Every structure is written in C-alpha cells, then in structure tokens.
C-alpha cells in the first residue's frame, strides 16, 4: 500500500482545504523576535510561507533626517541589538568618511577590539540559540555568562550594556580603564575553554548533526542572487568579507582567515560562526598586543584631533575659550557637514551593514539609507524551508540569525 492511500482526500467541490495554514509569530517563542510567518502545511511539510515584517519598524531613516550626526548613533544601536557596537562604529566610520577624518591607529585597534567582542557576543547567542531550538538548552545557559563578561567590558568603556552608543565621531568617549583591560584579559583567558566545551557539546553531536545537516541549504549562486552577506553567505561557500575586501578601522593590519562552508545549510552556518569566533579571538589578541606597543603620549590617544566634531573634555569647557565654543557648537548642532554622498559598509555580525548617506550641506542628513543584511536575506526564507518539516523551519530561522530590529529598521 502506498503511503498516500491513507491521506484524507476531500470530495470534489469541497470548500475546505487539504492543507493547514498556521501562524508562526508575530509573538511566538520560536521566532526569537517580532515577525510573522504564515505557513501552509501539508501534514508536517511546508508548502508555502509568507513573511510579514514591520512589527518593530521605527522609521529610523526618517528620524535621522532631523538629527545631527552624533544623535543618530543611538538609533543605530537599535538595528542589530545583539551587536550594537558594530552598528555604532559603522556609523562613526561613515561620518568620518564623509567628513574626511583620519583616526589614529590606536583608536582603530581599540575599535577592532570592541567590534570583535561584539561579533563574538552575536555569534555566541546565535549558535547557542540554534542549540536551544534543536533541544539543548545547556550550551545557551553556559555561554551566556561570557556574553555577560563582554557586556561588562562595554560597560567600562561607555557605561551601557545593550544599546551601547559606544564611541564618538573621531574615537572613543574615554580611554579604556584598567578594569576594562582586566576584564578583557579574563575573557581572553576563559572564553576559549568555554567555547571548546561548547563545541564538544554540539559539533559532533549525533542529534544536533541530524537536525542541522541538510536543513535549509542554499547554493552559492542563489545566495548571491538573494543578496546574502556575512556568515550565511560564507556558509554557502563565498569568501566575501567586508573586513578583507574593503578594510576599515585598519583591519588590513590583522592576520585572520575567512572560514567558509560548502552547502549553506544550518550545520555549515553553525560551523562558520563557530570558526569566526576563534578568528575574532585571535584578532582581539593581535589588537591587544598592538595597543600595548604604544608608548608615552601615544598610549593615551583615544580620539582623533577633530575639535569641530569631538566634544572637548568637560574641565576644558570651564577653563578654555575654544573648548567652550566647540562644546556649544556641537551640542547646539551648529556644525554643518560637507555636501556629498557616501556609501560605507562594515562587516556586521549578520553581514554587510551599509550606510548610504546623502548630505546637502546641512546639519542633518538629507537622506540616510541603511543596508540591513537581515532584511535582505530573510526574503530567501521561503525558498530555504519549502518542502521541509515544520521543525526545520524553526531551526533555519534561528540559524539565519534574524534580528527583528535590524529587519524593520
């Protein structure tokens, strides 16, 4: 007897459907964010999926048209909130490109440290959530304490943890204090061991492999056509990384590999992220080494000398005329920017995070468009899950690392 004999067949002309339509989201624990999927199921197989997004749309691009440059940084926090510092730095470097600011090497290296910590924080969450969706909660709870440690480092640098608003145009708000360096050393010392254990828990785990291998694969051609970037594109076998192709913040000074996969399925995405965490750790070590090599006055440099855009120290504001003038001008938003248009991108945790900024010479952007990697590659979701099981749809979703904040902008 063939398996289809047992299927319920509807009589001719019935108004009912043989398929079931279900809502996955907008507020479903498995979506890890506010977005909806209308799935049409035949038994447990997915026939079609329709995505609805925009539940946390805040019109960041519109708001940015009324704000001076430095007030836009907190808006970028709200894109991919798992790795806000990368968004912040992306915005600062965009502004610096427009304004023609050259940052000192030490600033670049400090930025690299912060950005790579953010990448680790993001990949760590993504990978452990894939574990959670495959039924293993332990890894998530175990690695979470190291994200906490990363947040503590950021807290020492900028005072905030999640929506960091870290750094300024031209550099950082303060130099790193000794507690930040201590915590960084602790992190560099302890995290590799934890990550090793995490890998031991998942990488060759039979259940995990069965769940992820072959789930939601995509070919390199399709991934490129869909505009994939970041770990998801690299898992499909394309070694495109903005840090290497268009270096910013002196990434060309560092030695690191671009890990790639072959099939672009969930397992490959997991492995690529895993490997990227090791590469990030190595980059942080190199950057820390380079920062320590600065001696004398150079060791205290934490911002470029751009008084028109970088707020002066508060004690100078009270005692020096120039500092007071610049302080007033910046706070009042009275500094015009040069007219022009600039596209600048950074390697966000999800892929190429681009800023397309048009300035008409005013004090706020004429137009700011954010290329949000998540938004672009989520279109492929239907193609990734069509024909697979409902439980695969969940795991594909988490391994794509979809962040509602970034998607909706």
């Amino acid at each position, binding site marked *: 007897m063939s398996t289809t004999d047992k299927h319920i067949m509807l009589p001719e002309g019935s108004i009912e459907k043989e398929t079931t339509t279900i809502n996955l989201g907008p507020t479903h624990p498995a979506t890890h964010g506010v977005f909806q999927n209308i799935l049409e199921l035949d038994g447990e197989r997915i026939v079609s999926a329709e995505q609805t*997004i*925009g539940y946390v*749309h805040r*019109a960041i*691009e*519109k*708001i940015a*048209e*009324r*704000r*001076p440059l430095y007030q836009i940084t907190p808006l970028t926090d709200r894109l991919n909130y798992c790795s806000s510092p990368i968004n912040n730095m992306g915005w600062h470097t965009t502004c610096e*490109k*427009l304004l023609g600011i050259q940052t000192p090497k030490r600033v670049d290296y400090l930025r690299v440290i912060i950005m790579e910590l953010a990448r680790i924080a993001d990949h760590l969450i993504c990978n452990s959530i894939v574990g959670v969706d495959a039924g293993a909660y332990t890894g998530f709870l175990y690695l979470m304490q190291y994200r906490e440690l990363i947040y503590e480092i950021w807290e020492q640098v900028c005072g905030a943890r999640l929506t960091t608003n870290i750094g300024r145009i031209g550099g950082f708000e303060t130099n790193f204090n000794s507690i930040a360096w201590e915590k960084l050393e602790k992190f560099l010392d302890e995290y590799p061991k934890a990550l090793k254990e995490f890998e031991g828990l998942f990488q060759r785990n039979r259940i995990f492999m069965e769940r992820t291998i072959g789930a939601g694969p995509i070919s390199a051609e*399709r991934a*490129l*056509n*869909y*505009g994939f970037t970041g770990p998801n594109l690299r898992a499909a076998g*394309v070694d*495109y990384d903005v840090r290497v*192709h*268009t270096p910013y913040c002196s990434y060309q000074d560092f030695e690191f590999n671009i890990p790639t996969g072959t099939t672009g399925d969930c397992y490959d995405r997991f492995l690529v992220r895993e490997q990227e965490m090791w590469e990030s750790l190595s980059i942080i070590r190199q950057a820390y080494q380079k920062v320590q090599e600065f001696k004398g006055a150079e060791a205290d440099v934490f911002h470029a000398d751009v008084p028109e855009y970088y707020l002066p120290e508060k004690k100078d504001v009270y005692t020096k005329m120039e500092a007071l003038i610049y302080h007033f001008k910046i706070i*009042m*938003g009275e500094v*015009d920017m040069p007219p*022009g*248009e*600039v*596209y600048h*991108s950074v390697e966000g945790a999800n892929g*190429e995070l*681009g800023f*397309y900024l*048009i300035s008409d010479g*005013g*004090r*706020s952007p*004429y*137009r700011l*468009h954010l*290329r949000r990697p998540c*938004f*672009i590659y*989520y*279109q*492929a979701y239907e193609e990734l899950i069509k024909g697979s099981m409902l439980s695969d749809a969940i795991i594909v979703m988490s391994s794509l690392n979809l962040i509602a904040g970034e998607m*909706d*902008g």
Partner: protein
Amino acid sequence: MALSNDLIKQRLVDQFGDAVSAFEEPYGMLTFEVKPELNMDLLQFLYHDEQLSFKFLTDLTAVHYPAFKDKEIAVVYHLHNLVENFRIRFKLFVPIAKPDVTSATKLFEAANWLEREAYDFYGVNFVGHPNLKRIQNVDEMDYFPLRKEYPLEDQTRLDKDDEMFGRGGSFGFGNERTPSHFHTIPEAAKGREEELFGGQKAE
C-alpha cells in the same frame, strides 16, 4: 584587465551613448545617471558582460528631491563586482506624478523586498514586480511617509507646551519648516500656511 572608473565609464558610453550621463566619483565610487526606461538594459549589460560582471546587488533605494521639477524621485542602485571587488552606483530620476520604474526582480531576487521598501516609503511603482505591496507599514496607509512633504514633528511647534514634555526650548538644527523647502505646499497643509509656516507663502 582590472576594472577602473575610467574603463567602466568608457564601456558604458560606448554601449549606451548619451543615455548615461552625469558621471561623478564622490569618495571614489563611480556614480552616474541613466534614463529611467533603460535601467534594466543597463543592469543586464552590467550583469552579463564578462569584463564588468556586476552580479551582486548591494542596495536599492529611493530618494525624494522636491526641488527637481519632473524628476522628483530618484532610485539609486549600488552594484558590486565581488570578483574584482569593485563597486558602482547609478541613479535614475522619475517624475513624482508617474514614478514608473522597471523592476529588477527578474535579475536579482534581492531586489524584491528592497523594491517593496522603496514603494512603501516613496511610492515608486516598480513595473513587473511580482508582489508590489507595502512591507514595513500597514497596508491601509495611503501616503508615502519618507517623502519630504511629510516633515517630522517640528521642534519649534508652538501649539504644544514643551515644558510638559521635559523640553524647555527648541532648536531648529537647520531644518526649519519653511515653504521654500517644498516644491509645493502639501495638500494637507493647504489653507493652514499661517499656522504652520508663520505666514510665509509658497514660492
């Protein structure tokens, strides 16, 4: 031969003649304009030409320039040749009264949502798009919110008691709402110029 801005410009001028114009290189990226009806020809040429092969659509968005008469809406494409690691940008301008642009979805799947977003915020009508409906905003919305005729709340508004909202004063940041910023007075503001713009009349 490695790509360069001059080479690409030469190839495009040879192929399209005066349909491509206004070549610029802001911050090193080759930028040019193309006639709106030729956008797909240009994309196809850039995609399939062996030497150019711009096969990655980085970004697609729209911009509103109320001051440009009969070409108020600009659609901006960013393309990337990943092999040579070369980026270019091109624009096309369409009138706001009839913002028809051929959809790039046949060539790039990535264009699908990007075009829906451009439609959602600027009302660009992408002809040939398989599913051109709003993406971020609600379907019932009947205006295009990122157009310049919808300025954000004016921080110099006088009809609100700012002290109730923790804001004592207000500063314009150079975006003061005056009629000269607009090509036309928006429909909703007709007859309220006195209240909204402090008595100034449109040009």
